[in-house]
């Protein structure tokens, strides 16, 4: 479904990507792990069209989406839940969700709003609350729900468990599981490598802008030198 080949991105002074390759097949949950500064966020940002790409190619369902505008990439079916969630804090939960569905028509949106309220009960409780007042865990759910409003074919999440207490981390991974049983395709960047590897079908390890390891979740988990690949010894 998603094919990234030879991606090289120089993004100011922050982690460059060097010749990164990545494949995601429909229905998979793929994890992207690695130490901080490895380029994981840059990779997602490049795919989503936020960061200009220097060289390489990104194809989605056969179409070349390299360097398209973010709004076009969203319409192609790729949604990104950004790092730090970036919800619109002055807008209510309902409004945040509505904006997530801006590319849908009104009746579709109404149906989707109901679906999200069912999937994320805590959002229903805070329907009219300004999003800026939500706790970290609630905000994360909102961010994911918002991305789902566009009916994406592929969802990308950037560090969904960042800054969350352990119980909420559980929640996030449960969510990923639920989404997977719904048949969605998901690419997740995560700092919590062990949990990610457990939850994922396949994973890539990124370090210093390069893919240094890949395989199924269990394969990578079993590697005794996982810590070493992280630190680069």
């Amino acid at each position, binding site marked *: 479904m998603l094919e990234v080949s030879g991606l090289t991105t120089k993004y100011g002074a922050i982690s460059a990507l060097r010749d990164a390759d990545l494949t995601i097949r429909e229905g998979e949950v793929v994890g992207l792990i690695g130490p901080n500064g490895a380029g994981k966020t840059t990779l997602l940002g490049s795919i989503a069209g*936020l960061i200009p790409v220097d060289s390489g190619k990104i194809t989605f369902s056969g179409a070349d989406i390299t360097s398209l*505008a973010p*709004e076009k990439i969203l319409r192609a079916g790729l949604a990104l839940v*950004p790092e730090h969630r970036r919800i619109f*804090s002055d807008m209510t939960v309902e409004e945040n969700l*509505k*904006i997530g569905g*801006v*590319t849908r028509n009104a009746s579709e949106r109404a149906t989707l709003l109901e679906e999200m309220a069912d999937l994320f009960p805590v959002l229903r409780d805070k329907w009219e609350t300004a999003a800026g007042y939500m706790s970290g865990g609630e905000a994360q759910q909102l961010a994911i729900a*918002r991305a789902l409003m566009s009916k994406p074919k592929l969802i990308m999440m950037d560090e969904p468990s960042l800054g969350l207490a352990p119980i909420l981390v559980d929640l996030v991974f449960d969510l990923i599981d639920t989404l997977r049983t719904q048949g969605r395709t998901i690419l997740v960047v995560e700092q919590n490598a062990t949990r990610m590897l457990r939850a994922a079908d396949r994973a890539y390890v990124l370090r210093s802008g390069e893919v240094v390891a890949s395989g199924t979740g269990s394969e990578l988990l079993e590697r005794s030198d996982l810590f070493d690949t992280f630190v680069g010894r």
Partner: protein
Amino acid sequence: MSELLQNLIDGLGRGSIYALLALGVAVVFGIMHLLNFAHGELITIPGYVTFWAFNNGWNWWSVIPLIVVVSILSSLLIERIAFSRVRGSKDFTMLLTSFGVHFIVSAGFLLYVSASVKPIPRPDWFAKTVAVGGLRIEIFDLVVIAVTIVVLAGTTWLLQRTMFGLALRAAADDFDTARLMGVNSNSVIRGAFALSGFLAGIAAVFWIMREGQVTPTAGINPMLQGVLAALIGGLGSLRGAVLGGFVLGLAEVLLRSWLPLGIQNLTTGFVFVMIALLFIFRPGGLLSVPQVERV
């Protein structure tokens, strides 16, 4: 007491127009981080069109929608020709661009029309007053306040209840993330300029009525009031802009009545100094929150 009330109404009347102008400035600033020094041209251009219209037999009923339409179109045209080409540039660049546009328009009218003042007839009910409980109130002020309330209510509805308004607010909050949601950057920017033009158009109707004339530099004063009011309220805050407009209007009127006679002429100067002081102590405006520096 009655004088105070009279001043209040007068101040609210002026403040209404300033609020509309300020809101127009704030809408554009929120989206593009551009302080639009050319906003006043959205009054100058309709002003000349109005002069032409009256010379060709139009009357106020037909001129009012004309003014609004011309204002919206001018706003979109200026965006297309000038601002679209400096999108994403440093604030310095965009500020100077708007300054340049202001100058081109006013110099253009100077060049291609005339430097002289073009008179515009006022509507017959303009000078009428009405007696309310011992006060003499100008009908004009009442009309302005009433219309402004309606327009502000309508704009609020637009921003809160329509998808377009939602997209605008999202883009003003976080432009990149809004694009991630599928909001089209061109559409939302043009929409902001159109809304800004509409608000300026309403303000233009009353400004032109009050001034009764148009000159090439007619745009400087409204632009200034709009920019100042938006700054008072805190750039980027739409509520603040409206508040700033009313504060400005009231301050003008109240200062004029309180200052000793000799210095009354310096009212505008005083207002400026106050604003400068405001900026020194609260650079973000009245409704601002201190910003943390990003490292």
